[in-house]
């Protein structure tokens, strides 16, 4: 702790003696009330997820971290290489299923509601990535699907509860 003094204490102690302690008695009662109502439990919560105690499941994204290297995904996905259509709106179901499978395996906390994620991954353009779907929060946000050539497509999004940026490259 910084090397400093408290200037009120000695004066009060000198002049009103033990009666000054009553100030602290009252103050600690206030402390107890604040602690009781505001201090939340964070035990058993991974650091990345503590935000949900404060902000709910809509927790704001922290500075994104890369979730996995591109090349890992590249290698995994190119095994199932499928020629892709230009539009990301019509991703082949097989590809989506595969993507979901890899997502589910990669993220420890990821529990995709399969139908909704499917819809999300295959149907939406970036501008449509609203945070609610049928009134319930979806697992991902800020989804960006980019179709750069006929050979490959990239999918970038933020996983909601872990706030990780996940980048997928599909060949």
């Amino acid at each position: 702790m910084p090397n400093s003094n408290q200037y009120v204490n000695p004066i009060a102690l000198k002049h009103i003696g033990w009666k000054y302690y009553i100030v602290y008695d009252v103050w600690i009662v206030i402390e107890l009330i604040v602690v009781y109502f505001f201090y939340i439990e964070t035990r058993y919560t991974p650091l990345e997820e503590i935000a949900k105690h404060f902000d709910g499941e809509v927790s704001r994204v922290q500075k994104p971290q890369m979730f996995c290297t591109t090349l890992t995904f590249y290698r995994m996905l190119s095994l199932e290489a499928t020629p892709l259509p230009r539009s990301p709106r019509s991703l082949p179901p097989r590809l989506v299923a595969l993507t979901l499978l890899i997502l589910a395996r990669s993220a420890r906390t990821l529990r995709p509601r399969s139908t909704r994620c499917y819809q999300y991954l295959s149907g939406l353009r970036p501008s449509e990535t609203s945070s609610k779907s049928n009134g319930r929060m979806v697992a991902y946000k800020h989804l960006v699907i980019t179709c750069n050539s006929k050979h490959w497509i990239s999918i970038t999004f933020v996983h909601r509860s872990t706030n990780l940026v996940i980048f997928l490259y599909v060949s």
Partner: protein
Amino acid sequence: MSFVWFVPESPRFLIAHGKVEKAHDVLAKVHANGDRDSEVVMLELQEIKDTIKLEQEFESNGWMELFKTKGNRHRLVILLSLGLFSQWSGNGLVSYYLHQIFDSIGITDSNTQLVINGCLQILNIIVATTQCFFVDKVGRRPLFLVATSGMLTTFVVWTICSARYTLNGDKGAGNAVVAMIFLYYVFYNMAWSGLLVGYSAEILPYSIRAKGMTLMFLMVDIALFL
């Protein structure tokens, strides 16, 4: 130093400043012998672009960020109170003005005062160190609650005993104050010394962690100055 000029600019920097074409050149040069159409280069470029775009969306964090959302205001209450309570709960009395307390309960011998203070500091180390091992077992909230309740109880007894000594000259009450100081510190160290920084840091998300910690320490210093 003079060779720094030969190092190509970081493509991440270039993209962050809107020079996508230049970044493309750099990546092509470094990773594909200048082939701008190489798949690897295209892929890297896209990856960097997407990540930076996402990052920039989330990095709108001024100081007002701390007040904007309900969650952050909740954090703020915790941080400010942590800073204040950790210094301003009566422990400052003992830390800086112990001799005045001893004088007021009839322990005027400076040697005795020194020995008691020494024992108190040793107890502090032991309790604060032991407490570390219980943070994950017991949880933060119970530690804070038990510590603060204990502090309240001991401080009330401390007040009563001190009053008895002053009013009636009761020597036993004076000694009881010393015992209460020790007990008070056991409770204080159960939470308020060890969890101060740990709890503050963990409740703050990365984007506002530095700012939040600054405010907490500001509160500590204000409390110490008063």
